[in-house]
């Protein structure tokens, strides 16, 4: 009897637990499922479809033969090789420059170090494709201003430097990507405990040996992390190779994908090639992300200073002024020169005229801003799309981060896995993925509408939102929320009055971190735009392609002004330490 009683009780217990589970299946599970759905629809399905298209035949059979055939075609093989060569070259150059300048502004007595440090990050703000166009204007073999200047000056026949080609692509990309290394390394050098070096010095070891044997090994993880970021970006970079390579028949993976899709108007063959190349991008990006996590986890020595002291500064003595001049020249050439070129050419009455004031006019800017429907639409599209995507992505990102960081709910690991995907998906891949997903296959056809760009932006910038909102949420200690709950607040009240106000800065940062890059986005939009849905980036690119250089530069000037104002605003609002993507 007793036994039966116990059994029944147990059954009752199990039953009531189920009821509780069912009741519990309220807000938390709903939010989890909602978050999973968003990530699946926005990121996972597009990627899966790319792999599906790449590795199956039309009737759904696994197919590796076509993949190998496509890869062994000279043009795809060459594009792969180019991508890798460019990525390697850019990574090496960026690492050398980044480490050198980082060391210069943190460990030497270089004058104006504070200002120099800010200036070295400025290239981050400038869209690299606009920079590439400026360099094309300056250094194209025939008409480039610098080349023409030296031709006349020296009476030579050949151009001083031909920007078209691998060398030009690598140099220009390096200019805009080296801050990744610079930021990582200067951060590590600043945080490093100076007594690690002082203790070596007082032990009788000279500064050169210390730099080689102590400082360098300790910052190696940061150097590698920065270098891998550069490699990741360069490998899947569209803008610079599109402007400086396509003209002379040099393609990398993203530009070849663009070429295939654009030229063939979406033929099966083109899509197949595109998806195979995109799959390679996704896989290499995933490997790079994995390596980076590994390096950062394994190599993180405890080198944070206990007692804050100024690190020892190497006295540059005779090299002080030359190195200062070198740094200033570097910034002048890589930042100032292209920017000024953009504005000056944008003001020219006709392209090709000498850059003199009498040839300048403000009419171009007026025309672009107020009269020409194409550019007006592009500006409007970009602003609306960026604002919308930033707002939606920020909200969704906050929800997903909240589940990952704060909620204890079964099945969270699915979300954690999905949440990592956006970090390793390049823009070209996203574009291709959303084409496959939203062109009617699932009953929704957004092709050639602004909607398809909108969903692509959400997928592309989800990583930014997740990064900054989860960082903000991690700083809100659980006890704060629990304290308010214990004072009688409901979950929702705790969220609204305690958590949200505390993470608001993180959310605002996320908004701008998405809004500003989206405003100048090219890689994704260029594959997705339709006749009425050009964005600023696309419009500048198309104008440049059509030879409308002056209008391209005028629109680029306007974009630069908006970007710089936005950057100043975000720095004012967030004033956080580092903003790396």
């Amino acid at each position, binding site marked *: 009897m007793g036994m039966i009683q116990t059994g029944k009780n147990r059954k009752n217990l199990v039953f009531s637990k189920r009821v509780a589970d069912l009741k519990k299946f309220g807000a938390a599970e709903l939010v989890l499922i909602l978050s999973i759905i968003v990530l699946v629809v926005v990121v996972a399905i597009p990627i899966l479809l790319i792999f599906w298209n790449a590795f199956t035949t039309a009737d759904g059979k696994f197919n590796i033969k076509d993949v190998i055939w496509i890869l062994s075609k000279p043009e795809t093989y060459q594009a792969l090789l180019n991508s890798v060569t460019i990525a390697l070259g850019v990574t090496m150059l960026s690492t050398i420059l980044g480490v050198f300048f980082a060391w210069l502004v943190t460990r030497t007595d270089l004058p104006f170090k504070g200002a120099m440090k800010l200036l070295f990050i400025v290239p981050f703000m400038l869209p690299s494709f606009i920079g590439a166009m400026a360099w094309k204007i300056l250094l194209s073999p025939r008409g480039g201003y610098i080349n023409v200047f030296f031709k006349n000056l020296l009476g030579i026949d050949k151009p001083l430097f031909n920007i078209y080609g691998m060398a030009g692509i690598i140099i220009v990309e390096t200019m805009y990507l080296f801050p990744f290394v610079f930021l990582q390394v200067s951060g590590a050098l600043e945080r490093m405990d100076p007594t690690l070096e002082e203790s070596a010095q007082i032990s009788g070891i*000279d500064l050169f040996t210390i730099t080689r044997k102590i400082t360098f090994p300790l910052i190696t993880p940061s150097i590698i992390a920065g270098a891998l970021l550069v490699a990741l970006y360069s490998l899947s970079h569209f803008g610079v190779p599109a402007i400086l390579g396509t003209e002379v028949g040099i393609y990398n993976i993203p530009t070849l994908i663009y070429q295939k899709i654009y030229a063939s108007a979406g033929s099966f063959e083109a899509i197949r090639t595109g998806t195979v190349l995109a799959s390679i991008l996704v896989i290499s990006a995933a490997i790079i992300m994995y390596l980076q996590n590994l390096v950062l986890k394994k190599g993180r020595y405890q080198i944070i200073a206990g007692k804050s002291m100024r690190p020892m500064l190497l006295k540059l003595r005779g090299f002080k002024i030359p190195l200062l001049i070198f740094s200033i020249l570097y910034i002048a050439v890589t930042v100032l020169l292209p920017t000024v070129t953009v504005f000056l050419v944008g003001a020219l009455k006709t392209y090709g005229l000498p850059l003199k004031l009498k040839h300048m006019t403000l009419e171009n800017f007026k025309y672009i801003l107020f009269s020409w429907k194409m550019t007006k639409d592009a500006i409007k599209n970009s602003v609306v799309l960026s604002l919308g995507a930033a707002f939606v992505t920020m909200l969704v990102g906050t929800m997903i981060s909240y589940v990952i960081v704060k909620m204890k709910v079964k099945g969270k690991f699915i979300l954690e896995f999905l949440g990592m995907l956006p970090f390793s998906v390049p823009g070209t891949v996203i574009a291709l993925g959303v084409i496959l997903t939203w062109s009617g296959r699932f009953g929704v056809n957004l092709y050639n509408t602004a909607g398809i760009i909108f969903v692509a932006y959400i997928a592309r910038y989800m990583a930014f939102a997740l990064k900054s909102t989860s960082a903000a949420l991690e700083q809100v200690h659980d006890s704060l929320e629990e304290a308010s709950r214990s004072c009688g607040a409901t979950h929702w009240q705790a969220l609204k009055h305690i958590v949200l106000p505390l993470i608001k800065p993180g959310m605002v940062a996320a908004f701008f971190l998405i809004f500003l890059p989206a405003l100048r986005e090219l890689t994704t939009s260029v594959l997705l735009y339709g006749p009425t849905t050009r964005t600023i980036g696309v419009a500048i690119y198309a104008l440049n392609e059509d030879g409308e250089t002056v209008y391209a530069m005028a629109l680029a000037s306007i974009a630069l002004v908006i970007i710089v104002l936005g950057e100043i605003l975000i720095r004012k609002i967030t004033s956080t330490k580092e903003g790396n993507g």
Partner: protein
Amino acid sequence: MSQVNLVHVTKRFGKVTAVNDLNLEIREGECFSFLGPSGCGKTTTLRMLAGFEDLDEGEVIVGNKIFSSSSKKIYVSPEKRNFAMVFQAFAVWPHLNVYNNVAFPLKHRRLSRTEISERVERALLYTSLSKVKESYPNELSGGQQQRIALARAIALNPTVMLLDEPLSNLDPKLREEMRFEIKDLQKRFGLTIVFVTHDQAEAMAISDRMLVMSEGVAQQVDTPMNIYNHPTNKFVCGFIGLSNFIPALIKDGQVITEADPEAGVITTQIPSEIKARRVTLACRPSEIDFVSEGGVRGVIKRLAYLGEIIDYRVQVGSLEIRLQKLRRRGVLQEGATCFLKFNRLHWYEEQEA
């Protein structure tokens, strides 16, 4: 023979004078401490001695060699001073194992392989690290990490060993243990040690002589015992050990407290050198007795049992005086009226009101 000489050493950071006209002699083979509150200039002084900071004025002379001199424009860089230094944050190199942490500086001195390994093994032996010599610093405790730093310093066989608050990052029990270990090592190797600390107990325990600093100015240089027994000024008296400061007036050869002139006369001999009418008397809590008559009247406000010792707070007018008496001498109750006799007073003259 004196080993280290600081002559008129001055260091300024902008408008702040961190060290002001410091003169100091540190003898060979002694353990010498710089003691003072944070920001008093003790670490800056040590770093000038090490060569990490320039001097604005003065000279640093070690043996008979000038290491730093502002007037003669001489500056010997830290790596050429043949010193060794132990830092608060351990400063062990995380990418080298224990053995290599100690051996690394030796390898750059062109010593023979056998001599390097002999010196490293010896240093590891005396710091009880022989068993973990293959380990990396992050696998070891804070105490062990600091021992690596000590071993590294010993192996260098330096003319002077500099220790910058080496025990502050350790827990209290380990800190006391390490004091003795450092003292032992110093005796065994005959090291000249300069030790910076803000912990007076640590300085007293470890030093042969010490310098008490405040706001960049040397207050007193002497043995720990002499400094405790004969503090030259109010600052030293308050910083080293516990002290009561009693503002007092001298009227017709009698000493009365300012806080309660009616409370009675402090029975004491006025030292002949005291000329002022207003003075501050300093007295250790253990140097005050309860007496049944005479002395200064007060009321016991609070008492706390600290084990063997009872800590009394006695109110005399507006002044609170602290006493520490052994438990066995009998216990007075809170609220009781009592009379105080001051045994060893230190006199400091004050300006007339």
